[in-house]
């Protein structure tokens, strides 16, 4: 029997939870069809998380892509189908894969990350376009380009250093009308690896308290900079990401296991820590940097 998992019309980090709630009761080897026919929009988090979802299934899943031509075409330009075909049995109309070329909103197509070399490639590619997008369209300081690339590098390295299996990264800009009314640039980095709790548990002699769970592991890593390595120089990557989003009034959100921790800026109303979510392997990170506006323009 195949269970149909419905993808909501608008797929982002919040609504992806609806997908995981449908998946939670099913054993990992259950056959599933991910039904995205009614999807009209997806954030980079939504697309990379869908690929990650496919990786977690022990029985090859199926996916029906968006019916809407423009949506399907966008998913193709973002590189979704190129990678999805190795994970899912694709049903329905699959648009011809085209590179994003002139697609200005796709800063970085969905790119697999498994090795150090992949991070070099991602950083190299993002720098080519980041200057134009960040400075001209989001009015950020010209120096932000390098720091944005640094942030992207550190986010991707979490996969290489800790996940134990490959993941995905994508970067996109769009106008976030509903919550912000401004343009944003969004980095999504998703993997289906061992997650933060198991990564920290792998450290020798690490004491586990009665409250040790996914939420506490995220607090340790994201807030206190704890790493599974004893080397005190470790754990600086996420601290660097936090510095960057703090400087640019951005938002950092990391989901792992059954919890999600967020560094929430004033413009957002998300909770700092969400617990008791549907269990999902690995770690899924989203970094959102809003367009900078002058005080007088607010």
């Amino acid at each position, binding site marked *: 029997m195949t269970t149909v998992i419905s993808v909501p019309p608008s797929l982002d980090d919040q609504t992806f939870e609806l997908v995981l709630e449908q998946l939670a009761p099913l054993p990992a080897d259950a056959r599933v069809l991910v039904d995205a026919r009614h999807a009209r929009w997806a954030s980079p988090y939504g697309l990379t998380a869908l690929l990650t979802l496919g990786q977690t299934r022990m029985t090859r899943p199926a996916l029906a892509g968006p019916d809407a031509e423009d949506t399907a075409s966008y998913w193709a330009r973002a590189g979704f189908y190129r990678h999805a075909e190795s994970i899912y049995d694709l049903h329905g109309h699959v648009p011809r894969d085209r590179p994003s070329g002139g697609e200005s909103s796709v800063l970085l197509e969905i790119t697999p990350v498994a090795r150090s070399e992949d991070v070099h490639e991602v950083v190299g590619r993002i720098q080519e376009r980041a200057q134009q997008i960040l400075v001209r369209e989001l009015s950020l300081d010209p120096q932000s380009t*390098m720091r944005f690339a*640094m942030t992207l*590098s550190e986010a991707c390295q979490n996969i*290489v250093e800790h996940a134990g299996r490959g993941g995905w990264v994508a970067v996109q800009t769009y106008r976030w009308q509903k919550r912000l009314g401004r343009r944003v640039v969004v980095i999504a980095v998703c993997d289906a690896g061992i997650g933060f709790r198991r990564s920290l548990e792998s450290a020798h002699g690490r004491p586990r308290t009665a409250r040790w769970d996914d939420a506490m592991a995220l607090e340790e890593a994201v807030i206190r900079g704890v790493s599974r390595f004893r080397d005190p120089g470790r754990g*600086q*990557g996420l*601290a*660097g990401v936090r510095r960057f989003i703090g400087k640019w009034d951005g938002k950092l959100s990391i989901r792992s296991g059954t919890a999600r921790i967020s560094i929430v800026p004033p413009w957002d109303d998300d909770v700092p820590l969400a617990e008791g979510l549907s269990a999902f392997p690995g770690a899924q990170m989203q970094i959102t940097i809003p367009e900078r506006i002058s005080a007088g323009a607010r």
Partner: protein
Amino acid sequence: MIHHHIDVGGALRRSVCHLYSDLVTRPTGAAVRQEIEQQLEQIHDRTLTVIDFSHVGLLDFSCADEVVAKLLLHSISDAGAPVGFFLFRGVRDEHLEAIEAVLERRGLVLLIQTEDGSVHVVGELGERERTTWESLDRVGRHSAAALAAAIGTTLQETLSALDALCARRLAIKLDDSYIAISSALVARGIQ
């Protein structure tokens, strides 16, 4: 003092990939540091090595920890004394953010030479150490007693600060006197 120059961008291309200019990822940083350390193996403890970042694009935190912090930490003798002195050059503001973060985390300091040739200490330095270093840098080679008189502190306090500066590679003891590494550079005409 012997002057030795290492181009970090060149070390990156030799040790990892000839197409790379960005110092990103910990494995890349480790490979570059090992390449630099191989070059340093041949030098003795009174050598000043210029670590040149001019041809480095991006520097992330992981690489800064490997190439900068661990390079300093590894360059000590079996007795725990610093081996060699370093001056970092060609460091841009974007590099500095990562470098400052790893220095703070490890409690390290280093000398950076800016484009105008002036040398600055980067990293956390205690008030007394900083005052002593600035004075020593200004007056040049001095005995501890003469420096204490110039600063207006006790000999004991000045000796303590000078020992700390030597341990952190910011100054060097020559016979009965001390000289800031930055002053030694000027004396050698390294610009």
